């Protein structure tokens, strides 16, 4: 499991690979907490994420809170079927833009 981030102007792309679970809590948190203040648009790239568990959902919620709660603009992209299913079951589409 690894998390990397690239910033481009006012947007940031956070790339998650492998299993996205509690073990990446620290890493993921450090990344979104150190995002520069002028970043307004977040993209979480799941292309290489194989699986996520409920603590990963929790981390996404924490990030959303950090990014402004209901005003946060967060896109979750490139989800594989399993990942998409977990996000759908939890109705995270109401809180994030998922594609």
């Amino acid at each position, binding site marked *: 499991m690894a998390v990397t981030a690239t910033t481009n102007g006012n947007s940031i792309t956070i790339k998650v690979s492998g299993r996205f679970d509690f073990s990446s809590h620290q890493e993921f948190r450090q990344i979104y907490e150190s995002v520069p203040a002028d970043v307004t648009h977040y993209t979480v790239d799941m292309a290489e994420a194989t699986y996520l568990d409920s603590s990963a959902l929790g981390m996404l919620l924490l990030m959303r809170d950090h990014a402004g709660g209901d005003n946060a603009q967060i896109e979750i992209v490139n989800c594989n079927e399993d990942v998409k299913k977990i996000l759908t079951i*939890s109705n995270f589409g109401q809180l994030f833009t998922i594609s």
Partner: protein
Amino acid sequence: MQQSLRILIADDNETDRMILRTIVRKEGHEVMLAANGEEALRVFYEGRPDLILLDVLMPVMDGLTVAKEIRKSLVDDYVPIIFLTSLQDAESLAECLESGGDDFLSKPYNRVILKAKIKAFGRMRNMHEKLQEHNRQLVIEQQVAKTIFDNVAHSGCLDMHNISYSLSPLSVFNGDTVLAERKPDGGMHLFLGDFTGHGLPAAIGAMPLAEIFYGMTAKGFSMEEVLREINSKLRGILPVGVFCCGCFLELDFYEKKAQIWMGGIPDIVLYRSSTGSIETISSNNLPLGVLEAHQFQPAIQESFMADGDELFIWSDGIIEARNANEELFGEERLLNIFSVPRKQSMFDSILDAVDEFVGETGADDDLTLLMVRMVGIDEIGLPDFENKRGSLGGPQHWDFSYKLYGSSLRDFNPLPLVLNILTEVEGLRSMSGQLYTMLAELYSNGLEHGVLKLSSDFKTSTDGFAAYYVEREKRLAALEEGYVIIQAKHVPDGVGGVLELYIEDSGDGFDHQKFLQKAVPGEGYSGRGLPLIRGICEDFHYNDKGNVVHARLRWPTNKLN
């Protein structure tokens, strides 16, 4: 200050023993001596030293064998072993560590190094002891907490014969919750919940959840009201990122209806016992504790269930159960179980299939599964809310009048509150099921036929039944005018008491004659409460206009079943 240790010195060479003893004693430690391996073991068992200095080459039993024996006998305890050796080659030294030693000291002994090593390993043993102590404490706390958790989180009416459930064993504290409770009107609420994370933090949230669930269900609140309360409570107390996935069911045993709320939980299965077919129902809500109270809009799905139909609900533990090859059990395998005819119950088949799949690995015992079967109301009877506060009697002599105007009728259900007041009378508490049904029937007649002017002709078919409720919602949402008055009076009569109920609505009255004539339950979909009302009331009548109803009930009564 350095701590004094009890140190076993095992060496067959007397001179070496004496030298070591002198050094060790000078440091303030207590010394035990052994001249060969066998003796070393005996002294170890009898004297329980804190640290061992062990010669590798000794007669009778060599040091390596002694170290292995000692390590085998110590499960949780840690006693450092330092080998004493004149061997120099890497392989021999490595063997010392492999057989259970922690370090070695080469002959001839260097006093400074020996002192430093004893000190270092003394520290390590100390640390290990503290860790053990903390661990023991933690295990005890976990066990107590788990017992409390189980009492709160897996209670209610789960022992009813139309419910089967399976939970993780005592050792696993996974935060899964299974709750079931009867509603005063004879229905049932069930909840299967799965908090994010594991262990104590996950379990703590289950406490307020269960309290709200039982408290509000027994008082007659609807599923949506209970859900709203749980969501806002969890949202208030849980940190962001911790929430509760779950499935909430409300079963109506009269109308054979299941209302289903699902948030963040895997698809559930409705098994049609007559055809053996299944329908899956998917989650369409966010989990509980995520949204603010004003954003929480529960989407509730509805299914009709014939007697014998079964609903299966599980947390993701079953789907994610792994076998020795790290394969997941998966949803497909789970759904396939339903397509094969079984001799045993479907519930047992699922547990057996998962057991067989996981095999000996036993790594995943996180199997939370809940099944509930639709049955006839006669089969399970009405709920019996036992008196949990002892015989206090409660207030016996009172009356009240409660008038609700249009905007209050729109989005407030007064029945739980009224029932609460009535059942403060201990003698009425055992009848709370019947009382609720009676109140609900009379109140909704007043509200729907009186204030909202809906005709009950709608309700003679299944389609009409749905149409009726759509129309009811529509008119209710637009309600501005009108009122309903609920009056109740209780007077003690020596043996028991008399309860009088008076319900008036602002409508033009409705065809109560027709309502009263309908004595057979299940004829059409309305009026099921009437035989029950007649059964428990001493007197029951409408005024001529049909907008006021009186009911008088005397207790104790032998009319009750």
